[in-house]
């Protein structure tokens, strides 16, 4: 017996080790949650590897900053000029979009539509990967100490990246969108068809469960539907790059992710999302100066009524463009240039500043009158509102929003100038 054992010692050891591993694997697969010992092994492994990655990342960033801030200043002036020109263009664009946003907000309010807003995000550096083709996950340098929790959405400015899978004390593991075990609710921007966005074994991303009789075009954008409870609604997922008949009754829709999942450097972890119902009232507080202006005896009745009629038509509330004709002399325009400035809420991006103050304070502070709504009110002399009632928000609320929304002049500050 002894001779047999010693003769097959190597083989017996191999079988025992393999059996132990297969058994452990089977137990892990059967259990939905990780056991404490498994978690410990992962914590040790991640704690051993990530400090080096963090260190290299720190050195890399430091040397890049040194280069960028001190040595690479050539051409900054020209770049500055180009950026200023771009800002001017964007302001015009912002004015146009602000008008559209105000209209959308009123429609949402009519439908009692609840929308999720990203209130707080934490910026994180991507410091490593799993190193495996079958596990598409990355490590970020923020963890439990930074209030990161499992199942938080991870995004970039381009689109969604994935979700937080495991949280360690100072790092977290993020499961990427293109991993075959990940999933997100998706909706086609144009057709509003919904499906599930999943990764494949080869690292591609697909939209599943769209019926084969639906029309899906290459180039269609896909946004998050919000149905998964992880990603807030309306974030870009990607673009359709191929549509083909799939198995059963569904289409096979291949997606090019909006975020570059192969080259991630910095990401945002969405740590707080708020649901709120937009209301017309919040964007329609009439300006005291407009109400007063309408009640002035010097304003003739008829032109004012004309202005009222015009104000209710969409065109009259469009922002003033350089080529637009000036208002008729002696007639107070129903829509003043300032009142057509983009609504602050429309100007605030859905994604708040990184680790910025709460969006609530931002939106409430920078939420003067919605242009159209304000116009309607101000053009109704018998609205019954006293100037006091129609007074906009107190100036003290304006403080936190100032850096977030450039060029959005609070109404309470405008009033004295007029």
């Amino acid at each position, binding site marked *: 017996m002894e001779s047999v054992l010693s003769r097959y010692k*190597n083989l017996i050891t191999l079988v025992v080790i393999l059996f132990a591993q297969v058994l452990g694997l089977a137990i892990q697969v059967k259990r939905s949650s990780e056991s404490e010992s498994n978690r410990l*092994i992962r914590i040790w492994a991640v704690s051993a590897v990530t400090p080096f990655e963090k260190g290299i990342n720190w050195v890399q960033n430091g040397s890049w900053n040194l280069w960028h801030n001190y040595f690479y200043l050539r051409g900054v002036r020209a770049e500055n000029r180009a950026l200023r020109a771009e800002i001017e263009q964007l302001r015009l664009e912002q004015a146009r979009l602000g008008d559209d946003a105000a209209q959308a907000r009123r429609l949402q309010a009519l439908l009692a539509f609840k929308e999720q807003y990203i209130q707080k995000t934490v910026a994180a550096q991507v410091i490593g*990967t799993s190193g495996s083709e079958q*596990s598409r996950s990355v490590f970020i340098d923020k963890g439990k100490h930074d209030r990161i929790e499992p199942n938080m959405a991870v995004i970039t400015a381009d689109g969604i990246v994935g979700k937080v899978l495991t949280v360690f004390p100072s790092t977290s593991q993020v499961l990427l969108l293109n991993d*075959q*075990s990940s999933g997100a609710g998706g909706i086609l921007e144009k057709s509003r068809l919904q499906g599930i966005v999943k990764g494949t074994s080869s690292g591609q991303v697909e939209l599943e469960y769209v019926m084969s009789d639906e029309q899906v075009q290459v180039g269609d954008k896909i946004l998050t539907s919000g149905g998964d409870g992880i990603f807030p609604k309306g974030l870009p997922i990607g673009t359709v790059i191929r549509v083909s008949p799939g198995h059963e009754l569904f289409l096979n829709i291949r997606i090019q992710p909006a975020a570059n999942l192969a080259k991630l450097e910095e990401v945002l972890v969405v740590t707080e999302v708020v649901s709120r119902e937009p209301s017309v009232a919040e964007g329609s507080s009439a300006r005291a100066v407009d109400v007063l202006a309408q009640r002035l005896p010097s304003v003739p009745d008829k032109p004012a009524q004309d202005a009222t009629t015009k104000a209710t038509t969409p065109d009259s509330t469009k922002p003033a463009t350089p080529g637009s004709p000036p208002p008729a002399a002696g007639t107070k325009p129903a829509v003043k240039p300032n009142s057509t400035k983009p609504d602050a809420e429309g100007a605030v991006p859905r994604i708040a500043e990184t680790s910025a103050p709460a969006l609530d304070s931002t939106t409430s502070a920078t939420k003067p009158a919605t242009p159209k709504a304000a116009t309607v009110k101000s053009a109704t002399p018998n609205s019954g509102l006293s100037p006091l009632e129609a007074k906009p928000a107190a100036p003290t609320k304006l403080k936190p929003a100032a850096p977030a929304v450039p060029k959005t002049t609070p109404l309470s500050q405008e009033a004295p100038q007029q």
Partner: protein
Amino acid sequence: MPITYTSGEQVEVYRFSIPVTVGVPFAAVWLQSFLSLHFPFFKMFDLPLLVTIFFSMARRNPISGLLTGGAIGLFQDALTHLPLGVYGIAKTLVGYGASSLGAKLDVENAGARFLVTIIFYVGHEIVYFTVARGLVGLSLAWSWPHELLSGVANAVVGVFLYFALDRLKQRT
């Protein structure tokens, strides 16, 4: 002849210091994680596997080889989100196989190392594929051209890596 059959007495058995035994596999796993971030194509390489093959062939002891492979594999598993043991099982078998082969054959020259690495790489992938599909339930697609190409790429890197690691060997 690149691969020669030798008796147990003819082959040299090497050992490694503790810092090398711990540090080299650790560095391999770390580099695999770090370089894959900056160079996505690097995921086709498997540095921990190359290190497993090297240590196993140099020690020429099957038990030592399978334990080395098992430990490196589990370490690699811990960095993924998959259950622990998928890489562990595959590298345990590779460690056992490489050390058994090292005990019988002289695989010290570049040609032999190149061939052995390709064979063990493909063997590793087959075991990984089987375990991941059969036990974990992953839907993986097997592609011979991809695996063979990756095998050749790993073998090329392996040949250079083995020569670098040869300097760390200590004669028993």
